[in-house]
């Protein structure tokens, strides 16, 4: 018997589209209504830069939505009991769910571009945005996935780490501030979110390796926790 829940994939996708997909649609609609319908003078400059800005503003929220309480929700509500009494491997089940989240994040930029192209005329699609968002998903989504395997406040902790890293990155690159060696160490330890920023230079060479290895490490660590820590651990039976 297969332990990969492939047959469950359509149900997972349906759940994701009905919740996170609906949120993506609602955010796109809201941006459209505010900028095109409500604004007395619709911005004539709406183009790839503007779309990139929108993706940057809402990308991290959407990633948190796609990954929050992915494991911890099932653990706390007790849903895992009926799911994993079947021939299903918890690491593979949640990896499948995480990858579907990556897929939904990948369509974010095309959805925005398409929505505004329909409303305002053709806007060229900037495909590098998809790669940028995916590398950001690998880090932030991977971090939330890992935290979710042990704690409930996964999205909150993910957000706090993201903000701390952004703040340390700003301080580290400020010529007026000299960070102590401790904070430099902390900065180097945290996920390199600054490398995945939409306005950062293209990811190549050692930066690309750093992001890929760090992200893959987070996901592998999450899978290892799911493999070795029983799902009922941390509470009474």
């Amino acid at each position, binding site marked *: *018997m297969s332990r990969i829940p492939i047959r469950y994939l359509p149900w997972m996708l349906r759940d994701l589209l009905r919740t996170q997909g609906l949120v993506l649609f609602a955010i796109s609609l809201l941006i459209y209504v505010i900028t095109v319908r409500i604004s007395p003078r619709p911005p004539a400059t709406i183009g790839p830069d503007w779309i990139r800005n929108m993706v940057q503003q809402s990308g991290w929220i959407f990633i948190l939505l796609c990954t929050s309480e992915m494991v911890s929700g099932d653990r706390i*509500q007790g849903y895992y009991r009926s799911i994993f009494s079947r*021939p299903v491997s918890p690491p593979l089940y949640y990896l499948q769910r995480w990858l579907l989240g990556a897929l939904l994040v990948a369509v974010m930029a095309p959805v925005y571009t398409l929505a505004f192209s329909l409303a305002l005329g053709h806007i060229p699609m900037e495909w590098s945005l998809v790669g940028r968002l995916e590398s950001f998903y690998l880090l932030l989504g991977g971090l939330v996935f890992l935290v979710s395997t042990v704690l409930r406040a996964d999205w909150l902790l993910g957000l706090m780490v993201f903000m701390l890293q952004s703040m340390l990155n700003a301080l580290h690159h400020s010529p007026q501030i000299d960070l102590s060696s401790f904070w430099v160490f902390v900065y180097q330890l945290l996920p390199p979110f600054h490398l995945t920023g939409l306005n950062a230079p293209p990811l190549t060479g050692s930066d690309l390796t750093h992001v890929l290895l760090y992200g893959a490490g987070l996901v592998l660590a999450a899978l290892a926790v799911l493999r070795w820590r029983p799902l009922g651990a941390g509470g009474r039976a």
Partner: protein
Amino acid sequence: MIELENVSKTYISLFRNRRVEALAGLTLSISRGEVFGIAGPNGAGKSTMLSILLGYLRPTAGQARLDGHNPRQYVERSGVSYLTELVSIPPRWNLESALYRYASLSNLPKPTARDRVRHAIDTLGLEEHCKKQVRQLSKGNLQRLGIAQALLADSDLVIFDEPTHGLDPVWTQKFRDIVTELRRPSRTILIASHNLDELERLADRVGILNQGRLQRIVTAGGAHTGGVYRLVLAHPAPRLAEFFADATVVEGRSNEFRVSGTLEQLNQRLAEVMEAGITLVAFYPEQSRLETEFRAAVGESES
């Protein structure tokens, strides 16, 4: 099929600096083809034991094996039909789609899944609730859905945790028929319940747990050897004392008595009572055999 060897489980709360010993040196062996009951008061360790068997918890000491494998390995390879104590199914799922989801997680091909879902819905009488969301179901219907999802796969190990909780007498009886139909030489059925009468009717053996320890194993449905019985007569009979010197009237019921003795003594005296023209309505043990054993086991461990 199920082997528990000196299994202990201690919950440790670091924040409150507390340790709770849920299981202490539990050793138990359950064979294929057996229906095994687990009885015990609240907090006896029943649910902890089941969680260890499903690989949801790891024992602090000792080991659990299912068919010779580590529980998690066994479950991920073969699957277990499992009814949880508190049926937890996402409230927005509708009943029918919940069953299809669980069937797909059980890796059933579509045509088989369709047949099994229809069969489970028919068996549990859930047809009229198919389109309802889980949150709209009554306690009894939710419990029936819990049983239905456990019946989807054709597993060799079936675990029911408090299966008749919330069921009315009609569905409690139907559940017994379901268990009878599930019996098969290659299958092990484990039922944890507070309902001793149910366990006595369904199980071949019943393990009595208390304070994390297996107090005794009772072979259910065995012969009664005597004890305290209730005797109900058609009319009040002052002459009863001639036959049962120890007979005491049940408070508020002038034609109902408590009598005791060995089975031979009781049978002989009952024959004399009937010969004397006294009409009997009923004669039954005041406590079931399992109940007597349960009280003795729990009492012993607490004293």
